[in-house]
């Protein structure tokens, strides 16, 4: 069964001047994770806002848990949790204050709200910070509290809008751990991200979006196959360039890319190919200045899917400012 279905969503801002969504369609199978991958301005947040009933599309149709988001937004709200760029918490209040308040707004009783708040603070490792105002929290703690606030009534369907944007690597790792735990619990998750690695780590399926429409869709492996997976990259003295180019071409079997002193090409077997290359260069008595495997980035995905790099077309809905941490 599909928990989330979006069909042909169109949304324009500024009286049609800016097209945020241009016939976007996607769906999420119950109990799975869909990663919506795209650059800033591709329409990720607009999609989430429509599915979470915060925004009405100009046209198109969407259901969440089988309920029409336009006709019955109130019923949808009972089924979902939302966390991310937009859905925030009150920074002047403490973490505990916030969770209890949201519990009350979900119509839990006073004691149940308190119990649930304590339980969530414990689970997200925030017990020590519980009585401090949110504005003293680190980026990672803030996101965890934000996520906790969306889990108060154990929603079956969860929307996470760029859950790790702006976090340091450590904070990102922590957040991934937290999300993976959630997914194990059987929640249906739609998450948006700018990072291929993140979609790779967390999502069963990935939808790549660009300029308000889905341009590719599939598992992480199938997308990588399309992109060419990892790339072998070797930097050498200019004199050795031709010889190295030959070695790399043989291992890769694809066209190589030569740039000043660096040769690169897609490889299928990662570290095994890296060793083969090292051995071949050792035999040829070539000393690499640098050698490594490069994982495909969002830019690589975009380059191979669209022929252009991931542009940041800044579509900023008036008065709905993006919060900090975006780069």
């Amino acid at each position: 069964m599909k928990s989330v279905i979006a069909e042909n969503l169109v949304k324009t801002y500024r009286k049609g001047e800016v097209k945020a969504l241009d016939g976007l369609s996607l769906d999420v199978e119950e109990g799975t994770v869909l990663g919506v991958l795209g650059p800033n301005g591709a329409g990720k947040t607009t999609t989430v806002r429509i599915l979470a009933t915060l925004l009405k599309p100009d046209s198109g149709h969407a259901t969440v848990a089988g309920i029409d988001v336009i006709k019955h937004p109130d019923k949808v709200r009972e089924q979902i949790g939302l966390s991310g760029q937009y859905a925030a918490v009150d920074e002047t209040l403490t973490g505990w204050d916030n969770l209890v308040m949201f519990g009350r707004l979900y119509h839990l009783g006073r004691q149940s709200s308190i119990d649930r708040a304590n339980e969530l603070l414990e689970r997200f490792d925030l017990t020590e910070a519980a009585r401090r105002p949110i504005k003293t929290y680190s980026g990672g703690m803030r996101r965890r509290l934000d996520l906790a606030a969306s889990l108060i009534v154990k929603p079956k369907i969860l929307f996470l809008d760029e859950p790790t944007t702006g976090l340091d690597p450590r904070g990102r790792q922590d957040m991934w751990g937290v999300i993976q735990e959630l997914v194990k619990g059987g929640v249906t998750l739609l998450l948006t991200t700018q990072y291929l690695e993140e979609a790779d780590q967390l999502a069963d399926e990935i939808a790549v979006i660009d300029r308000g429409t889905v341009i590719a869709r599939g598992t992480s492996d199938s997308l990588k196959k399309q992109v060419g997976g990892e790339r072998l990259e070797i930097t050498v003295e200019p004199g050795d360039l031709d010889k190295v180019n030959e070695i790399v071409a043989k291992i890769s079997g694809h066209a190589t890319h030569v740039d000043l002193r660096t040769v690169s090409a897609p490889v299928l077997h990662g570290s095994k190919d890296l060793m083969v290359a090292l051995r071949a260069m050792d035999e040829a008595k070539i000393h690499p200045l640098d050698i490594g495997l490069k994982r495909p980035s969002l830019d690589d995905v975009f380059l191979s899917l669209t022929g252009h790099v991931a542009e940041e077309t800044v579509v900023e809905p008036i008065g709905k400012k993006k919060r900090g941490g975006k780069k």
Partner: protein
Amino acid sequence: MKNAIHDAMVITKRQLLQLARVPELLVFSTIQPVMFVLLFRFVFGGSIDSGQPGGYVQLLMPGIFVQTVAFTLASTAIGLAEDMKKGLIDRFRSLPISRGAVIIGRTFGDALLNILVLAVMALAGYAVGWRPTSGIVQTTLAFLFLFMFGYALSWIGILVGLSVKEARTVQSVGFLVTFPLTFLSNAFAPTTGMPRALQYFAEWNPVSTMVAACRQLFGLKNEFGATANSWPSQHPLETSLLYMVILMAIFIPLSIRKYKNYSN
């Protein structure tokens, strides 16, 4: 309906909690009016011949009270605009709560804050010699008037906040609206010195009718405002009540509708 009230109360409680966590908020809301009290009482007050027993401060304090509650318009708008900008309103809107609760709760919260602010201002007035002479009932009634006026303006603030969305712009807009309204009035000086046209504006100005009403309820003679012999300056209590009813009748439905349509 029961849920709507419950939800609104949770939002109201949030604002009181904010005050408990950041008590400086109360200082910010009172420091400006307190400065005005000192400025007019001690700097200008000496040269104003009020003709009132008890001196200029008796006329001044009702003006300060009204100016203080008039600022609710801006503070409600700023608070709401900040919540929208930070994404808190979106979070609330993603919850299964009744639609009007968020803004109704905010107006309640700002009203409760006004009680505190008025209490602080009354103490400040007392400290510089303000003494109402009308007895407890009338004095309480005056504060009830002030409270109601603040509440009515709060609803204009909701509409402004929802429309402007940017806290800094709201601040300027709030200033642009409240500044002329409070100064083109009888709050600080008699309207007699104004050009005729301005005088009529000043006397129909709800701030003036409120000030005149409060002066009356605090036991003063109302000669400070009734110069153009206009109907509002003759009947300040009735006019003020009428203004409040009209403001609420217009702005409560408008604001709620605006909030509900916010998703478009």
